């Protein structure tokens, strides 16, 4: 647990504001840790005199020798309707890097129906081994079946690290697997590192206001989900050799859910707060018809559509798309502002995006102050050109 050494504490109160849980109070002019403490350790580095310490009892048991039985890096290769998700290929690149440092093998786990042919792709992207569970019963994703197969395989093969995309699927069934195996899981990582054999899982917390380094020192495997487009896809190596291992799919996996249908819908599932790429439009687009141009760009980039308040007020798009003070706050990897002048109320909602591209006719528009890339020009002219170039580059 976290303790205050009262004899060292100077009563400076710096630690009080460092605690995200409001768990530090002043008692008789010295800091005191209350029951609110979540042991998050945020205060440890805040104390200028080192009066805050973590006591023995809270340390985890010493490393178990059985942990040494686990080796190898795995990537869950996600596919939907037979198509591999890009994040799986991105993770093969990062997985390769980790496996090389650990001098171990990189394996991919492919679950689905009629997907064995994709194993070659996974090998080309860096997998040494591909475990394939191919069965008609696996054509739809189900937490029960996918979880059962992956957990069973892990118990048998004992990998030390497992990476999965932080996608709808990954964020649904990977926690089930982790709970079944009683091991740790770190969601939504944006960076990974190694300290010896310990995986450093780096992820945003508190709404992206801080970054945390999370470890799972005493259980195996160490499991992390990683946001799409965090890592670059590696360059595939054609003809690269690897082993394909067929996984027995038991006939008696009990499925307690049933997928009746999938409804494709790119517009109503807006969840701009979670999108990695946002294309936002404002008054500068002129009318509702021009606003549709954004859809092409969004489709080309796989992004969601956002809007300034002016565009929402004008009725060009519905309120859930509004970004800014009275709408959503977002911080995607890429934010493209089209015809948005950048009223303060809009800027507060998007300025923490990683990369901001601003397209506006007015060179003095405030949006340019926060933009990484500025293009002074008419959005109506720029967007089609941009779509064209993106398509060219993508091939």
């Amino acid at each position: 647990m976290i303790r205050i050494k009262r004899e060292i504490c100077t009563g400076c109160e710096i630690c009080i504001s460092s605690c995200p849980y409001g768990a530090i109070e002043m008692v008789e002019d010295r800091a005191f840790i209350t029951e609110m403490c979540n042991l998050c350790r945020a205060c440890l580095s805040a104390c200028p005199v080192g009066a805050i310490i973590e006591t023995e009892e809270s340390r985890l048991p010493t490393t178990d020798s059985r942990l040494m039985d686990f080796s190898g890096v795995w990537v869950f290769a996600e596919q939907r309707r037979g198509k591999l998700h890009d994040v799986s290929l991105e993770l093969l690149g990062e997985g390769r890097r980790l496996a090389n440092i650990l001098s171990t093998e990189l394996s991919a786990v492919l679950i689905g129906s009629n997907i064995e042919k994709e194993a070659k792709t996974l090998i080309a992207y860096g997998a040494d081994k591909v475990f394939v569970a191919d069965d008609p019963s696996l054509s739809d994703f189900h937490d029960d079946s996918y979880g059962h197969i992956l957990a069973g395989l892990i118990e048998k093969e004992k990998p030390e690290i497992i990476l999965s995309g932080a996608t709808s699927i990954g964020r649904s069934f990977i926690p089930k697997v982790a709970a079944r195996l009683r091991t740790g899981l770190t969601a939504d990582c944006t960076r990974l590192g190694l300290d010896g054999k310990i995986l450093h899982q780096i992820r945003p917390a508190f709404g992206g206001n801080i970054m945390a380094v999370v470890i799972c020192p005493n259980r195996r495997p160490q499991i992390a989900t990683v946001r799409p487009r965090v890592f670059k896809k590696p360059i595939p190596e054609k003809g690269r050799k690897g082993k394909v291992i067929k996984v027995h799919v038991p006939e008696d996996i009990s499925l307690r859910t049933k997928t009746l249908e999938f409804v494709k819908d790119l517009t109503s599932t807006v969840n701009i707060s979670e999108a990695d790429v946002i294309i936002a439009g404002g008054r500068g687009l002129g009318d509702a018809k021009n606003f549709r141009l954004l859809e092409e760009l969004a489709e080309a980039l796989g992004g969601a559509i956002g809007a300034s308040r002016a565009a929402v007020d004008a009725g060009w798009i519905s309120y859930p798309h509004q970004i800014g003070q009275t709408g959503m706050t977002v911080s995607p990897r890429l934010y493209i502002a089209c015809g948005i002048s950048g009223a303060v109320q809009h800027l507060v909602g998007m300025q923490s995006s990683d990369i901001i591209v601003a397209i506006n006719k007015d060179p003095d528009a405030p949006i340019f102050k926060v933009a990484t890339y500025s293009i002074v020009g008419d959005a109506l002219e720029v967007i089609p050109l941009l779509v064209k170039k993106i398509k060219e580059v993508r091939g």
Partner: protein
Amino acid sequence: MDYFLTDAQKTIRDIARKIAIEKVVPSRAELDEKEEFPHEIMKALAQADLFGLYIPEKYGGFGGGSIDLALAVEELSSACLGVSTTFAANALAAYPVLLFGSEEQKKSFLPDIASGKKLAAFGLTEAGAGSDAAAIQTTAKKEGDEYILNGTKQWITNGGEAEIYTIIAMTDKSKGTRGASAFIVEKGTPGFSFGKKEKKMGIRASATRELVFENCPVPKENLLSKEGMGFIVAMRTLDISRVGIGAQGVGLAHGALDEAVKYARERHQFGKPIISFQAIQHMLADMAILTESARALVYSTARVIDSGSKEYSKESAMVKVFASDVAMKVATDAVQIFGGYGYMREYPVEKMMRDAKILQIYEGTNQIQRNIIGQALIKEAASKK
């Protein structure tokens, strides 16, 4: 400023503020633009138990008074006057029942109003009878166990949306103001229909509509008080409800002042935020002085009413005049501080300025209020001799 509100009153204010921020602010521009009735917000206000604030507990209300209602109205008005007008109009319609209704009438109509299950509307104004309320033409003729209503009411807030209407009609034209009577009329009564929906300058989220009565039979059980009491019912109702208009004014002024301060801190000209200029600071200071003065007058008058006093006609007229004039001035100055942006619909102060104007007009123009104050002064002076 601390107005020594009770815990319950602070809770009322907090809940109303929460609804204002979470439900009203995000939708107000769209409601205004589309002139759309705020059904969702009314539902939220019902779920929050706010419709029954001033209605006794035995009729399903909260058991509070004018001050409790004023607190809720103020918070809603700081976000959107159209929404607060829709809300407050229910009280305007319910007060005649509360003040003059029989036990039976209270039991059958107040619980649904208190729960927000049914909206209510008050119908006095006609095309030819505005400030001169005695000129109303709608008639109610007694035939057996019914009164037959004929005539058209104009500019009725919640018209068409409400289920319960309190209507003033002439039972005996020859007696002038002493020939008016008040009735409760339910939506769906044969011969009761709705005319055109008005296009307004402001408060566009509120529904303002004609009520048309064509041989509309109203059971005699729905007569409020006695025949000939219609004007007393209307005047006593308006005496109380004027404090609500005051609360609307305070809320709107408060909302406009907040927007102006926020904007003045963000807006840079000549390399500085404009709030650093004393010209702006002085404007904001005057706006704040007026808003707080109006609030103090609203709260103290509401407390006088809640204390059981019968003498508040003059004071409630003062509240109405002062707070509505303050709202108009503060909203206009807020637009001035926003400059060109203030004139644009993208920012909320433009709407606030349009909305504010109605406060000086409805429920007795500010000129009529001054008449009331003047007459009260004459009466007071005369009684001293």
